[in-house]
């Protein structure tokens, strides 16, 4: 199961956080700060999986942005690692070359995309066209 999905930049600012298990807000801030510190301290040669407390962190870096996913032992590390990339490709497709600013200014959209892909901590959809379908309806409604 996926426990949380984070997007944090190198300065340690959280750009997106989605928890699939309830975590107190003050604990979230601490966790996010600690997680990004752990990721930043690692070099390129180190592997992308970190044993962290009683779960594992899977992370990928895109420019200055880290995507960190917390999982328990029922997930396949490599599958989650590549799932992160799939998520980024979906964002890229929707925002045409996604940047940190897109994520900041369209937080609701990013959330919608993530919610289409992960529900209740489980990967639920990986097909890009289907992930974006509800968003396209939204956009169409707004234009009309």
């Amino acid at each position, binding site marked *: 199961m996926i426990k949380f999905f984070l997007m944090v930049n190198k300065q340690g600012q959280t750009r997106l956080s989605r928890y699939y298990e309830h975590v107190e807000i003050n604990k979230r801030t601490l966790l996010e700060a600690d997680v990004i510190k752990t990721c930043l301290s690692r070099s390129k040669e*180190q592997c992308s999986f970190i044993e962290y407390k009683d779960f594992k962190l899977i992370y990928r870096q895109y420019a200055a942005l880290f995507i960190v996913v917390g999982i328990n032992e029922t997930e396949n*590390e*490599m599958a989650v690692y590549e799932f992160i990339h799939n998520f980024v490709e979906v964002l890229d497709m929707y925002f045409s070359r996604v940047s940190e600013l897109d994520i900041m*200014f369209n937080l*609701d959209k990013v959330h919608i995309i993530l919610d289409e892909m992960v*529900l209740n901590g489980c990967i*639920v959809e990986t097909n890009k066209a*289907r992930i974006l379908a509800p968003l396209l309806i939204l956009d169409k409604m707004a234009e009309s």
Partner: protein
Amino acid sequence: MPAVSKGDGMRGLAVFISDIRNCKSKEAEIKRINKELANIRSKFKGDKALDGYSKKKYVCKLLFIFLLGHDIDFGHMEAVNLLSSNKYTEKQIGYLFISVLVNSTSELIRLINNGVKNDLTSRNPTFMCLALHCIANVGSREMGEAFAADIPRILVAGDSMDSVKQSAALCLLRLYKASPDLVPMGEWTARVVHLLNDQHMGVVTAAVSLITCLCKKNPEDFKTCVSLAVSRLSRIVSSASTDLQDYTYYFVPAPWLSVKLLRLLQCYAPPEDAAVKGRLVECLETVLNKAQEPPKSKKVQHSNAKNAVLFETISLIIHYDSEPNLLVRACNQLGQFLQHRETNLRYLALESMCTLASSEFSHEAVKTHIDTVINALKTERDVSVRQRAADLLYAMCDRSNAKQIVSEMLRYLETADYAIREEIVLKVAILAEKYAVDYSWYVDTILNLIRIAGDYVSEEVWYRVLQIVTNRDDVQGYAAKTVFEALQAPACHENMVKVGGYILGEFGNLIAGDPRSSPPVQFSLLHSKFHLCSVATRALLLSTYIKFINLFPETKATIQAVLRAGSQLRNADVELQQRAVEYLTLSSIASTDVLATVLEEMPPFPERESSILAKLKRKKGPGAASTLDDGRREPGPGGDVNGGVEPAPSTGSTPSPSADLLGLRAAPPPAAPPAPPSAGSLLVDVFSDSPTGGPPSLGPSPEEAFLSPAAEDPGIPIPEADELLHKFVCKNSGVLFENALLQIGVKSEFRQNLGRMYLFYGNKTSVQFQNFCPTVTHPGDLQSQLVVQTKRVPGQVDGGAQVQQVLNIECLRDFLTPPLLTVRFRYGGAPQALTLKLPVTINKFFQPTEMAAQAFFQRWKQLSLPQQEAQKIFQANHPMDSEVTKAKLLGFGSALLDNVDPNPENYVGAGIVQTKALQVGCLLRLEPNAQAQMYRLTLRTSKESVSRHLCELLAEQF
């Protein structure tokens, strides 16, 4: 600048976000946010009704502020309002806000449920999905109760859209996890399994998650999913790379779904049906084959996705552990990854191989990679990868490669990360013991461990080496020689001094023939370390010295001089002082024979499970233990080569050598004496021989036991027992119990910590009671707190007659639970039994104490620690009559102190609880509030449990 906001522009929001971005400092950001929060609050509170768009905009801002890490305490109502909007955009933000901010305990759930209900029944698939997402994300019990019945129906309905089915599956999963009782298995379960056949891959992906969870709890109900999952998997694996269209990821067909299907199969044993099994093995082989084919794409995404499926396939092969061919192929595949340039793959390969090593089929195959793994331990730049390599070396170790692996791990230890040193030390110690063929190697290894990483060598490790040396006489001489040499180093670790001290004290004589290690040399070598050591080590060394006096009489004068020195005899540490004094006296007055007996060599330790292994298990959790207990790896009779040190199951703790060195208290003990069954029963024995004499109070006499075989079992007190008990807290006589057959009256008197109680058993019928047997039992800790001696009563009670039983009671220490009185008898042939709580409460041993106001307040202040006070505020259950209250307080046992409390309405009391072991002073204050019909009761005593218990007892009385 990218598109500020795609689709519907919420300008206000974009401006706000830009402002936040432009803030130069955290303070400026907080200021801007507070300004915005105030603005939104005023908008929400304002008279003007907000339109949907504005509501959405503000809710969206709040969401953004929340995601910046600020708590949001308003706006929930507005978000809930958005749910009922007809506009998808507005509804969407409402749901988003709720699923991010609302947790399952919120009070808003009922309102949210309304919105969700409307959308679920709307038949608009987009709305239904939103509602289902909401349930899946919030998933409270209340939501479960409202919707658990609908979801399975939506999930298996023929006309539900794919996306609705997907959401419904995950929604049901959430409800099942949160409250399984709300999701009863039923007709829908069979249809859920068939979702694996759904033509839509998204639906299958969602359904697998649900089924995996359900089948873990109800494996039998979902057994059919195995064959369906196999055929689905087979279709994916054998499909051409373009068959699955958008579910193909960089030429890999449906990688995430494949992984999930393989996970699902790991919930079950290999399929029994030969056809299904054949098909599955074919799938697994295909995946392994594809790994060897040239990649269809140079992109890393392609190989990552492919490898994700490959690793899951290998997990399934390991899970089945029944196909030697596949296991060996999996091992070879992982072997290739061990040298891959991608660190991620090396890490996963090491991890996977670790489980493979414990399979008898692949253990040998794993061993062939030993050099690569050793190399990984030396050269990997990532500590977590090195850690995996160390784990794998540990898992693949057996007698054939133990020496190599142990020496590599020792070498690694010199540079190992601090974080994993202790674990490596434990592993080396276990491997060295387990695979030791000659024990000199074992001793060398452990001493090396102490030399290299002394700080990380825990007590368990060096205790264990002492146990083994003590138990094996073929290694004792070597051990003595080796520690002697190790101690020559100018700076050696304190653990080395401990081991050296113990071994030389026991076996120093074995090397005393060599002039280079003659007794005086041994002594001066040890004593040169003495002053730098901690108290515990010095204490151990003192014991070594007295042993030397026995072993080497020529050192007696030197050692006595050391013991006699002021620094020992007047040492500030009592343990050292005591040892010095006792050993000096012992060596001065005891004859050689006595000395030889007292200071004899330690007897062998009883065999037990290695405490090191237990420690490693604790460190790694139970999961790791399975790879350590390698019963599988040594099949056949070869497993016993280790002789005495093969771990034997036992739970004893390691004896502390420093405490037991002399064996003074139990001179030559054959083994540790068997532990007493429990401390409690030991105490009972002591108390039954208490000075007052008389028959033991506990349990029935043999004759009674014969009459009522179940007499030891006191039974459960009758439901009214507590109420009856409370009746007697403030009085000492009355009717304790009455029913149609029997009346039990009680009369008691207490003085200090002693009491006498008369029980009157009246037979209310005209028929004789037979086998009449009242017994008193002491539940729990009470045995050590209270003694109740009962006098025998006749076994028959005639109709209409009354018999009397006398109980002598002694309170040893404060207690919480009253003793139980069980009355058994036969009435008209039918056995009757009844258990009551004997009205003996701690306040019965209360002696009133008179004191003046000043003294009272002084003591009150002395007892001001929070745990010394117990307070209860409670509603009056009886009319608040001052005279009755006073009588109750006096009956409770305390003195009533007048003119102490400035408020004359209040009651103040003082007393001392008298027990044999201790006296507990107790002050109390009761403040009635006639208007509110309430009381406040405060108790202060020097003992927390007494304060609390007295407070609870007394509060029941008013």
